[in-house]
């Protein structure tokens, strides 16, 4: 499928989702759907670095929180519309990703993973000590009930849902374009054998930095509307381990080599968690994610997509 066709198909799919939500007209659906879409963006973003390049980022929560706190900062100084906040949050997180990558990506792969893990702790320390954005007490972000979009007054939660839907489409299209481009093939060489790639003249460091920046920026963009969604942002919710573990578990369970893996993983796990949070408890649903992650990396290293491909191949041979 050509990229332009794919773009149109994704937009049509997004419109279908939107039409469906209009038909149901239940506000809870927007709250739950927003979270699932947010995970689609996080999983896709993680996969650009983790799945395509093979570099593990444990600090998804840090990039997400950077975006969220950038919004809080602007909410207090000079209020600007959320789409611009998303852009700024993306730029901030992208720059941090670039800096982190520059310091650690020249070394062995595991150093990058460890540094991202530590980044989350340190950023959290900084935010806790920064009173202007609420410190450890947290910050209230009051959102209006409705907003004017194209002359129509729509409920604010629908507006946030719409923005996240657009971002999810943008993230998936970006991932797919990368996958089919020179850049994507470069990423794949790094994942498969970095030494050989280097020897063959692939500018590995530059490619890795590009991947880290794009991935970080998308996570920051996903975080930017979050304060408006939650209404009250505190460090431990913004830096929650749930984001880090979900951003890894979703692509791993779906399958890391293509754009569709993270999408499937995020839709599946995101929905399960929404259901489990309502019916059982939020601690149990995190346990489910952890157990599924470990089970999948051991039993099905290529995720659900890998399982389906295996099945298809077996059928062909018969």
């Amino acid at each position, binding site marked *: 499928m050509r990229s332009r066709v794919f773009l149109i198909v994704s937009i049509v799919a997004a419109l279908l989702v939107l039409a469906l939500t209009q038909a149901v007209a239940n506000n809870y659906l927007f709250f739950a759907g927003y979270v699932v879409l947010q995970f689609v963006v996080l999983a896709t973003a993680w996969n650009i670095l983790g799945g395509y390049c093979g570099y*593990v980022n444990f600090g998804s929560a840090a990039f997400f929180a950077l975006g969220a706190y950038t919004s809080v900062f602007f909410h207090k100084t000079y209020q600007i519309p959320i789409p611009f906040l998303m852009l700024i949050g993306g730029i901030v997180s992208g720059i941090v990703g670039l800096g982190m990558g520059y310091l650690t990506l020249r070394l062995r792969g595991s150093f990058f993973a460890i540094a991202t893990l*530590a980044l989350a*702790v340190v950023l959290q320390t900084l935010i*806790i000590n920064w009173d202007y954005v609420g410190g450890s007490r947290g910050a209230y972000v009051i959102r209006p009930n409705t907003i004017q979009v194209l002359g129509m007054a729509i409920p604010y939660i629908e507006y946030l849902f719409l923005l996240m839907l657009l971002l999810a489409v943008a993230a998936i299209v970006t991932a797919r374009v990368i996958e089919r481009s020179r850049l994507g093939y470069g990423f794949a060489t790094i994942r498969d054998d970095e030494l050989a790639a280097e020897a063959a003249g692939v500018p590995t460091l530059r490619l890795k930095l590009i991947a880290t920046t794009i991935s970080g920026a998308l996570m920051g963009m996903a975080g930017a509307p979050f304060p408006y969604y939650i209404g009250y942002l505190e460090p431990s919710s913004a830096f929650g381990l749930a984001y880090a573990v979900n951003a890894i578990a979703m692509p791993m369970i779906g399958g890391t080599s293509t754009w569709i893996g993270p999408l499937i993983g995020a839709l599946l796990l995101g929905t399960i968690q929404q259901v489990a949070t309502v019916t059982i408890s939020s601690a149990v649903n995190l*346990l489910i994610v952890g157990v599924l992650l470990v089970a999948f990396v051991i039993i099905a*290293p290529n995720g659900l997509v890998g399982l389906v491909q295996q099945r298809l191949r077996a059928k062909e041979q018969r």
Partner: protein
Amino acid sequence: MDFPIELLINAIIAGILLGGFYIAVTVGISISFGMLDIVNIAHPAFIILGSYLVYIVNSTFGIDPVLVGILMLPVFYVLGAAVYQVYYLSFEKRGQEALRGLAFFFGILFITEVGLILVFGVDYRYAEAPYIGPALRFAFVDLPYRMLIPCVISLLLLAALQLYFSRTFIGRAIKAVSQDQQALALMAANPIKIKRIAFGISIATAALAGAFLVIIQPVEPSVGREYIGRVFAICVLGGLGSLPGTVVGAMLLGVVESITATFYGPSWAPAVAFGFLLLTLAFRPAGLLGR
């Protein structure tokens, strides 16, 4: 205003004692990450698990926490050997340790933490022992026993391990496996078995570190996360796989953290470890005592 020299000296000594405790926390990572090249980010989770087991035994039977920690060494050794076996069969053998092996340990870290929250809740737990309250006092210097005892035992533990790695056959084999696994196989030693033993030892140290942790401070399930940055910072700072390097790194981080906490407030202390880690990675990735 005079410079508070007494405060500074107290901060430095408290830092050295804290550093002693960090040795016990880090030595396991020095073995697994430094020697075996296994990025066991779940190590702090095993330490917290140790703390909770010590807490249970201590609060039900009233046995001394350190003694419980020592009694648990074999249990944690077996646990470590089992984890390595799973890790080897699922990832090392297939050559997938870089991405999926990391995700595996991350999953273990997460499951342990959430599991402990489900069982014990997020309340702080602490152990009881006669030496937790009192302190030794020289002039204006305070040496609380609850810091002194972990520090001394950690140093003994490290000395014992250093002897083990330099004098015994298996100890030397572990050092050899970190340098050249194939050469070791040619010497008719099974590298997988050696690594399993080494990983078992590395997790066993977590039992003792867990006992110290619950003596030093009240413990709740997510405390372990604060230690991830620290242990890797110490490990990288000292030089990968070097036990003397671990001592230097741990003491250095302990002192700097203690001074930071004394003069700027404890809420800044976690940032120190990360600063160290980034600076080391940027300027001397081999560490202070690295090869």
